């Protein structure tokens, strides 16, 4: 008589590898992912069947971390990602994965016609558990991909959002955009101080036009940055203080003290150019020069 259900399922998967892969290739999930050739879909299907057989062989049908899944994890991730890109929600991808079970189950039932009812039931249950675990593996991969994406974007945001611009010889500006939390302001301070050295800047303009809220912590970060720049011999000007922000800062009791502030970046640049003794000359219509 046949062995344990797990081994029965394993043998069945190995025996029917080709047929299962052929049937899967016609399911929406595989059809949608492998659009170029059906053979590719069949090959991918075989790889998944092999993985399932290996997991069954190890007797770990309930374990999404089973070693057998390692080989196909990347492929499953690609398939899940492709469906997400096509606009499917996680739940929809999950239900597409569910459609992979019935064809396999039908094959298994037709192979087990001679077996006792109990054995059939045990085998079908084992297969169901195994297919369920496969779904968990795909979902896990999808979630960790999402988390990795968020982490990458967070890092990107730290870098992208803090460019230091050279406005003139000896003048640099940082347009600050978005929330100025501790991590961001640390990056701002570092890049600003580095560029002060690099550009031999005597003036640095911190523009907060793009900062929606200035509370006491943001103000503290600004003042620390200003103080650090001052230690390096550069004077800081804070610009882009909008009327609503100005009123709020007064009520909050924040005083930027000795920091020079201007309402717009243009004003700040004008102030600095004046300090540097640079005049702006507008050529007149007939070639004369007016100051």
């Amino acid at each position, binding site marked *: 008589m046949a062995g344990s259900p797990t081994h029965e399922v394993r043998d069945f998967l190995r025996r029917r590898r080709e047929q299962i892969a052929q049937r899967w290739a016609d399911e929406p999930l595989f059809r949608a992912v492998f659009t170029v050739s059906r053979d590719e879909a069949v090959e991918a299907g075989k790889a998944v069947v092999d993985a399932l057989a290996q997991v069954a062989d190890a007797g770990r049908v309930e374990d999404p971390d089973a070693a057998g899944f390692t080989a196909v994890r990347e492929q499953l991730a690609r398939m899940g990602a492709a469906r997400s890109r096509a606009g499917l929600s996680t739940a929809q991808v999950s239900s597409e994965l569910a459609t992979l079970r019935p064809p396999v189950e039908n094959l298994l039932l037709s192979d087990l016609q001679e077996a006792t009812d109990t054995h059939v039931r045990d085998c079908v249950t084992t297969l169901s558990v195994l297919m369920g675990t496969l779904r968990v593996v795909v979902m896990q991969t999808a979630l960790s991909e999402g988390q990795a994406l968020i982490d990458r974007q967070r890092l990107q945001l730290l870098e992208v959002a803090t460019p230091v611009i050279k406005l003139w010889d000896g003048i640099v500006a940082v347009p600050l955009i978005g929330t100025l939390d501790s991590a961001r302001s640390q990056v701002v301070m570092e890049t600003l101080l580095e560029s002060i050295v690099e550009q031999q800047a005597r003036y640095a303009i911190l523009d907060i036009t793009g900062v929606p809220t*200035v*509370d006491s912590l943001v103000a503290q970060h600004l003042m620390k940055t200003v103080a650090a720049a001052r230690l390096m011999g550069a004077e800081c000007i804070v610009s882009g203080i909008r009327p609503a922000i100005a009123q709020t800062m007064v*009520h909050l009791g924040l005083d930027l003290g000795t920091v020079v502030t201007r309402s717009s970046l243009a004003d700040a640049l004008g102030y600095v150019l004046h300090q540097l003794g640079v005049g702006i000359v507008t050529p007149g219509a007939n070639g004369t020069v007016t100051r």
Partner: protein
Amino acid sequence: MHTAAGAQARLPIRSDMDLVWVRQHVRQAAAQLGFGLVDQTKLVTAASELARNTLVYGGGGTMDTEPVSEGGAQGLRLTFSDEGPGIADLDQALSDGFTSGGGLGMGLGGARRLVHDFAIESRPGAGTTVRVTSWVGRAPRPREES
């Protein structure tokens, strides 16, 4: 961003990311109720201060927002609750320049000046609840000289 719950909601305050969410939610709720830009900014800034206190000193908690009305006036009430160590000396905590954590010490007192109504309840060991309300179109409260 969109908050489906509208002006009435409970937001968790567990991380820096939640502070961003708190600010956005308060700004949106205030705009919906018809607060002008200056009043929106004030309320958002007060919420930012109080939410950070909840996070840093209270070890995390929640913010509840609810629209309120009184004699035809519309307002927004924010309640920040935590179950942290509490504040032993409220007068000291509310005075400008006092900090137990390395900030500027302007948060609590500053937040009080940014809103119309301000109530704080705290007992050592029993957490802190701060309830603030601002009203649409009402003149800012006069500065108290202390």
